[in-house]
């Protein structure tokens, strides 16, 4: 083999092979990055909110300047709710119940105390897509909007030099709750954040706790819902939009936005991947030209080897190994570069989506290996065919 290599390595152009190498590396890396970015970023938009299904929409009344001035109520009346229930698109309707008492939540962190007035809301359990953890005595499970945490991390904590909190850390903190109702009735409790929701724009507690606490602290007031949660048969139904418009309601269409973003990202990732594949294809073309030139320049030698009894497979082998070696190197370097770049963008992403979990690496690796196999396969075939043509005058 050494003598054969000594003969056939003549006329190998380092420049051409380097050109192929860089082009193929760029193509491969572009493809792998598009796949990996897609895997990493899509869950941030496309993932269904784990607390509320996409077939649920939330209705509220539009707040206009006039209604603020003349004190018009924003709550839904029983007849309005009955009307919504009567619509064909609605299969189930639930009311948001707000707490009828004051809530003050505080927590002590590193010696300093922070506290805020707030409120609770609940929806019927069948609309919450999570089983509430068993209520321990005096501890209330709470689901917070994810936006609140972002607001704190990027708006508040940053300017007040307070520590940023991940979702995991928040879930470990116990809140001190003071509930104050009619006639100075007061109740001290503990609260714990058990999850974050992207779609429910409220501080959610279990319906059973809400019912019980309203009864104890505000027995005389009758809560009127300002928001309604509706399970619809088909979220894309036009009837929903026209009904909402006719009645001056607002609809929370978060899920629709996420859907559009996901779609857009898919297209962008697809375009980037296509460009990467195109670069890969062109680099493959460069390699083939280079190898063909090499075979042509060494045609006499190759022919002599064939005529003294070397098989086409045997004289093809050095060039095939050369291309496979290059392809392996490209694959390894592309994966290494992918991991490095991914680390860079993940750090940025985590600032925007602290809860984002990394997507799997497997799809990108499989795509890389698939490209390697396809490119190597065609390299091997093309070299062999080129050399077969030398066997006859």
């Amino acid at each position, binding site marked *: 083999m050494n*003598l*054969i290599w*000594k*003969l056939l390595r*003549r006329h190998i152009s380092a420049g051409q092979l380097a050109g192929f190498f860089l082009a193929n590396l760029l193509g491969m890396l572009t493809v792998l990055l598009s796949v990996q970015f897609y895997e990493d970023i899509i869950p941030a938009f496309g993932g269904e909110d784990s607390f509320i299904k996409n077939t649920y929409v939330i209705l509220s009344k539009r707040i206009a300047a006039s209604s603020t001035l003349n004190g018009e109520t924003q709550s839904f009346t029983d007849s309005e709710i009955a009307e919504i229930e009567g619509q064909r698109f609605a299969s189930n309707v639930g009311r948001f119940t707000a707490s009828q008492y004051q809530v003050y939540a505080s927590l002590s962190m590193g010696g300093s105390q922070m506290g805020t007035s707030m409120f609770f809301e609940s929806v019927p359990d069948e609309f919450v897509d999570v089983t509430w953890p068993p209520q321990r005595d005096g501890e209330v499970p709470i689901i917070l909007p994810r936006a609140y945490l972002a607001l704190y991390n990027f708006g508040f904590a940053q300017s007040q030099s307070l520590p940023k909190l991940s979702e995991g850390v928040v879930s470990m903190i116990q809140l001190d709750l003071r509930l104050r109702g009619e006639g100075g009735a007061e109740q001290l409790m503990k609260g714990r954040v058990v999850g974050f929701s992207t779609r429910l724009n409220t501080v959610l507690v279990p319906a059973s706790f809400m019912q019980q606490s309203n009864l104890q602290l505000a027995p005389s007031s009758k809560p009127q819902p300002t928001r309604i949660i509706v399970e619809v048969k088909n979220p894309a139904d036009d009837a929903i939009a026209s009904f909402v418009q006719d009645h001056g309601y607002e609809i929370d269409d978060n899920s629709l936005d996420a859907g559009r973003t996901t779609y857009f990202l898919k297209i962008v990732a697809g375009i980037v991947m296509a460009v990467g594949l195109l670069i890969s294809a062109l680099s493959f073309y460069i390699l083939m030209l280079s190898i063909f030139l090499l075979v042509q320049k060494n045609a006499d*030698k190759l022919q*002599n*080897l*064939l*005529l*003294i*009894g*070397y*098989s*086409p497979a045997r004289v093809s082998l050095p060039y095939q190994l050369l291309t496979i070696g290059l392809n392996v190197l490209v694959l390894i370097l592309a994966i290494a570069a992918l991991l490095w770049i991914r680390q860079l963008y993940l750090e940025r992403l985590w600032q925007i989506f602290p809860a984002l979990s990394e997507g799997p690496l497997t799809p990108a690796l499989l795509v890389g290996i698939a490209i390697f196999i396809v490119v190597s396969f065609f390299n091997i075939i093309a070299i062999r065919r080129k050399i*077969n043509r030398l*066997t*006859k*005058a």
Partner: protein
Amino acid sequence: MNKITILNALPRVFAGRTDISSDTWQREVVLERGHVYLIEAASGTGKSSLCSYLIGYRDDYEGQIFFDDRDIRQLHQADWTQLRQRSLSYMFQELRLFPELTAWENVQVKNQLTSHKSSAEIESWFERLGIADRRTTKLAHMSFGQQQRVAFMRALCQPFDFILADEPVSHLDKENSAIMGAMLLDEAHRQGAGIIVTSIGHHMDLPYEKTFRL
């Protein structure tokens, strides 16, 4: 392989010519294992073409050529590779050596493929042919006569039923020519092989049993 039959063959470039008088073209020629043949030719009578047909490099001829009972047009590349390694040795007129390798490496290129001869044996050939001191010389720096001896040794580095030597001694003196002839006979006898030598005048001194004129 026991015999080579050339049946009514004619290079296509000669097609239509009426002035061909040859013992080989458009005749039936049978070459058998264990015998020694000379093919004498004048320039331009198709000697190189015949050799190219027999080694499977060209097939632009009319008529048929058989190895045993098999028409060689039916042979696949894999068959030719096997033949060139195991049954049919060919010393090219144009040598087809590798100028960037040394004399020794040129012989080894073949012997590594077949593992037919020991290094000691090849060394003794270099001695006998009087080029032992040129073993590590790049082929490009050797005279054609020296290169012919290298090509000859390379041709012996394989088992064969027939050895085809295309003007093997065109650039050799009588003495070296005789040594080469003796080595060739020796190798062929040991394997019971047939020898086919071509010549356009100055030919190797061998006990030819039959001479064909092209």
